[in-house]
């Protein structure tokens, strides 16, 4: 235990000394990692919010079956019972012509006076069909719509299926772009950290030689360099997190219109604590990997 503490202390001391010995190089590495993570993090934020929106809207998804005008109330109730028996349907609510008209009237508020001029109620009765949670998605809705389509007395079926499918396509596009960007930025980060560590190895070749002479194992020599990469990555992650939060808090209002298009007016959320920690851990992991790549060729003994 004391051995481990002594070794950890040495690694920490040496890594910090290495960073402070070449502050500009280290700062450039941290800044580059931060910029890469800001870009990747921004994509991740957009993606999480779009997915969150889909989850929130999923609960509101329902199918509306508009009934033929003049269908007797008895037939309307029979259709409601029939719709309820379809697999995947959680509940069915029958909205009469009158109720539909009252809803419309309350919806138009100041324009209600114009409705008084209508001779008769033009709105049809309808069935509002709620799906079980497992079917509250595009595929689930398609199954229910297919079962109800063509039933006698049902004039038209309306669902959010088209919207959901379109949104899913947009989500897949963002996800693909984010993944591609993430890979490119990840590789760039690795190369930058690897080069920084290579420079550190060259700058400290005397130290490496002396350590080797006094019996340091390869792991002991590599340890501080790996820790240096890890620290640079972690600091880059923290800087990226702070920048993202700043942009999210201060810059978001400027993108209100664009966000309205993709989030439909939903209030965007920042990363959760776990996601924020994952971003920092991701930076640290990239730094560690970059340092590992720099040392993969081995150190001269």
């Amino acid at each position, binding site marked *: 235990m004391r051995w481990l*503490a*002594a070794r950890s202390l040495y690694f920490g001391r040496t890594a910090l*000394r290495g960073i402070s010995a070449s502050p500009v190089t280290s700062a450039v590495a941290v800044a580059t990692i931060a910029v890469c993570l800001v870009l990747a993090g921004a994509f991740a934020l957009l993606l999480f919010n779009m997915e969150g929106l889909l989850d929130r809207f999923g609960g509101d998804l329902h199918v509306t079956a508009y009934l033929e005008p003049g269908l007797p109330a008895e037939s309307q109730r029979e259709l409601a019972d029939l719709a309820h028996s379809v697999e995947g349907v959680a509940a069915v609510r029958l909205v009469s012509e009158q109720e539909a008209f009252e809803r419309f009237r309350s919806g138009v508020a100041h324009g209600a006076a114009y409705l008084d001029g209508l001779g008769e109620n033009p709105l049809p009765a309808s069935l509002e069909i709620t799906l079980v949670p497992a079917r509250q998605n595009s595929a689930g809705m398609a199954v229910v719509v297919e079962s109800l389509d063509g039933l006698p007395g049902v004039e038209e079926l309306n669902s959010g299926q088209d919207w959901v499918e379109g949104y899913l396509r947009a989500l897949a596009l963002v996800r693909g772009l984010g993944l591609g960007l993430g890979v490119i930025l990840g590789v760039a980060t690795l190369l930058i950290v690897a080069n920084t560590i290579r420079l550190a190895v060259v700058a400290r070749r005397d130290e490496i030689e*002396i*350590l080797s002479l*006094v*019996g*340091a*194992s390869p792991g002991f020599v590599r340890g501080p360099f790996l820790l240096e990469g890890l620290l640079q990555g972690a600091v880059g992650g923290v800087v990226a997190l702070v920048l993202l939060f700043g942009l999210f808090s201060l810059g978001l209002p400027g993108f209100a219109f664009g966000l309205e298009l993709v989030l439909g007016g939903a209030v965007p959320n920042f990363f959760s604590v776990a996601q924020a920690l994952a971003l920092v851990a991701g930076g640290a992991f990239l730094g560690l990997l970059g340092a590992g790549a720099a040392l993969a060729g081995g150190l001269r*003994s």
Partner: protein
Amino acid sequence: MKFGRRLGPGAAPGPGGDAAIRAYHVSKSYAAGSFALRDVSLEVGRGEFVFLTGPSGAGKTSLLKLLFAAEDPSEGQILVLGRNVVRLGHRAVPDLRRRVGVVFQDFKLLERRTIEENVGLALDVVGTPRRDARAKVFAILKQLGLQHRRHHHPLSLSGGEQQRVAIARALVNEPEVLLADEPTGNLDPDLTVEIMDIIASAATRGTTVLVATHELGLVSRYGKRTVRLEGGRIVEDSRPRGSTA
């Protein structure tokens, strides 16, 4: 604080049974047909002090490099502290080096580290707890008269002081073998004697010492066993009168 393994002052090397270093028909060539060492066989007992002499290019440094596994011989076998250096795996090299202290002509100190940190490196690699390491470093620096300089950096020290720091680093782990390659090559005559006295005192405490030097005056002053190399071959192996072979 004591130097090295205790065998008692003047412990005589066994005729092979208790050798610290054994080299059998060792050759080293860096280019085809150009030999730095040729068919060198040598045995150094535990606790023995040996001068390795010869002109520049005789092969002294090459032989020392083979002994601490910095290089592999082209031919032959080398045993150091009972371990075959030629067959030593990469993972075993650090273990051997922890038992073999090395001192160089150019000191090989880290300029950005304090004297305490430079000496402490040898203890860091074996995981000595910080408090114990500080105590050991202080003790060895005190023995070498440098305890008051422990927070200084190497470049603020004289050449003799820097070499004493290098010796302190080599001895702080109590090695069983001490190899010194021209340890006084950069020093004036007074400092040369001072440094050699320190190295010789390590041998009296049981550490096997092999000193490569081309200074014949130094060799004659100490009256120790002398192995002379020329052109990569051993041309003379003389022992002082009264010592056992």
